[in-house]
């Protein structure tokens, strides 16, 4: 394929990405240097880096970042461990596999807003989980600043475990049979097979799931919006949610743009090693 045909094929897509992603991103940086509210949309006022220093000095920003990091620290390992556990269980059986997988897709494909609404109902007063907790453990669940953040994390585990499970299950089907056979001949137990053959083979998948999970957890928004019912008393704001509030609830558009630029910088710290890795992988293929 020559250069001209290549530009013809790739042109529209690159144009869309340039016009609709690169430009807005640059616009974000510039808008972040203005004081903008709903009242002066057409006449923004230049204030330099004041919005950026404002955000960095805002304790709520750091609180929301802290909760986002806690969220990632709990949810990402939990998804991978649970996903691996159920993938290993699925690997043990052959009957009804399809049924188990199809059922696991339900929380995964469900609209997040709806999924959270449904999830909340289960734990709300009169919901089955609420009732069973009360009956079995004599624990009365209230929505407060401890339980709501936990429910937000639990909800994300509920929706994302099936993804990890299906990816890891597919990975288990591609284990090198010779190594497994060799391990069996040497009398390796199931646990030893898992530890010495399966887990090393699945390593790149753990990285793949981990990265996707980190990226998605970093921008979690929908479930916070629904589970907190936009009520600040639950103290469960993630960085995206706080950013949204600064933009639409407080109407500080300039500060919100500055904050989103800073969050983009934040995710790049995690991402750069991965991008370098991908670059190497792709150039080696050629």
């Amino acid at each position, binding site marked *: 394929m020559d250069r001209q045909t290549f530009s013809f094929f790739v042109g529209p*897509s690159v144009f869309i990405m340039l016009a609709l992603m690169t430009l807005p991103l640059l616009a974000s940086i510039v808008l972040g240097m203005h004081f903008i509210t709903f009242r002066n949309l057409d006449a923004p006022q230049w204030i330099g880096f004041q919005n950026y220093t404002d955000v960095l000095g805002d304790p709520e920003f750091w609180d929301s970042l802290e909760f986002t990091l806690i969220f990632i620290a709990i949810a990402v390992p939990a998804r991978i461990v649970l996903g691996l556990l159920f993938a290993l269980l699925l690997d043990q059986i052959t009957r*009804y596999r399809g049924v188990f997988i199809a059922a696991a897709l339900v929380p995964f494909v469900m609209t*997040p807003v709806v999924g959270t609404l449904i999830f909340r109902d289960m734990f709300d007063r009169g919901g089955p989980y609420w009732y069973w907790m009360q009956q079995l453990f004599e624990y009365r669940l209230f929505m407060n600043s401890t339980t709501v953040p936990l429910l937000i994390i639990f909800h994300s585990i509920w929706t994302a475990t099936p993804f990890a499970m299906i990816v*890891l299950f597919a990975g288990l089907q591609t284990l090198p049979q010779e190594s497994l056979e060799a391990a069996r001949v040497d009398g390796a137990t199931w646990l030893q097979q898992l530890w010495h053959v399966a887990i090393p083979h699945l390593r790149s998948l753990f990285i793949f799931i981990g990265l996707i999970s980190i990226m998605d957890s970093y921008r979690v928004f*929908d479930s916070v919006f629904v589970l907190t019912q936009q009520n600040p008393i639950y103290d469960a704001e993630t960085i995206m949610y706080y950013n949204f509030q600064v*933009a639409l609830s407080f109407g500080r558009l300039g500060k919100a743009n500055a904050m989103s630029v800073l969050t983009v910088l934040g995710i790049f710290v995690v*991402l750069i090693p991965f991008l370098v890795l991908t670059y190497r992988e*792709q150039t080696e293929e050629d």
Partner: protein
Amino acid sequence: MTRTDNPIARILIYIALALFTVYNVLPFAWTIMNSVKLPKDANARIPRFVFTPTGDNYSELWLNMTPEAFAPYGLALILIFFVLVVIALSANRIPAPNSVVYIGCIFAGVIVAVALPDIVNTAEFYDYLINSVIVTVGTLCVSLSIGALAGYGLARFRHVVSVYILVIALAFRSLPSLALVLPFYYLGQLSGLYDTHILLIFCLVAVNQPFTIWMLRSFFMEIPREIEEAAMIDGAGRLKSFVSVIVPIMWPGIITTGLFTLLLAYNDFLLARILTQINWTLPVGIAQFTGGEDPGHVTLAAAGSVSVTLPILVVIIFFQKYLIRGLASGAVKG
């Protein structure tokens, strides 16, 4: 890996997986129950699994009138709609070109969708559905067509430029979408495009494009070059051989990518919430049920939840193997 022969262990495995299945589907099953309950059953202190079902919540959600006023014409139109879907799904067995069948069905479907509100006096929720369908279909068409071209180009042009584009796209994939949507919001307000379908569609296309080209490219890489080279020797140009030779054998890959695009566009809440004011899509419409003390609120929210979820579940169950293959393709390559 070695499978256990121990019968007790096998029983325990099945029990664990059964519990996992219950944990996955129980919330939705509970919501389906709530959606056909009377408010007094839904608000009971002890969860009620046995009750007298009612369809009131659905008619309150979808219609402005009482069910008695539900004209037979309305029912007839809904029936026609289902017949159209069945015809479209069995297009292969109909002695007419597939494209004619599809276009006819789509055309008739649009007429039914437009005529319905005049006949049965639908509520706002119906408008949200129409908005969601327009935005989802628009995003699918734009995203897949330009994404397929780009994915093909990137798979065939072995040059460092392709790698740059792919790596930058990957970086875009990870961006918090708020960083993109806030300037859109600002520019939309200034240009008057705020609250239009077109702005939302293009925003969704942009957010989705990095993922689309990566996924389609990996499917194109699996197609041997010889196939289109043969067509090109016969005198077809690149574009012609792409459309007439590559695309027909690429359908599974396009469907798989399309499913993920569909999920993204249909499920999106943040972008639609920011870029629309009255032209809400279904997720924004349903989010209004997140508060409120009205006792009828739980059942109405449940009816809304089921209404939003059923279409997507039907599509996913129908195309399940493509979705699972798409998820697993990350696995096989890794």
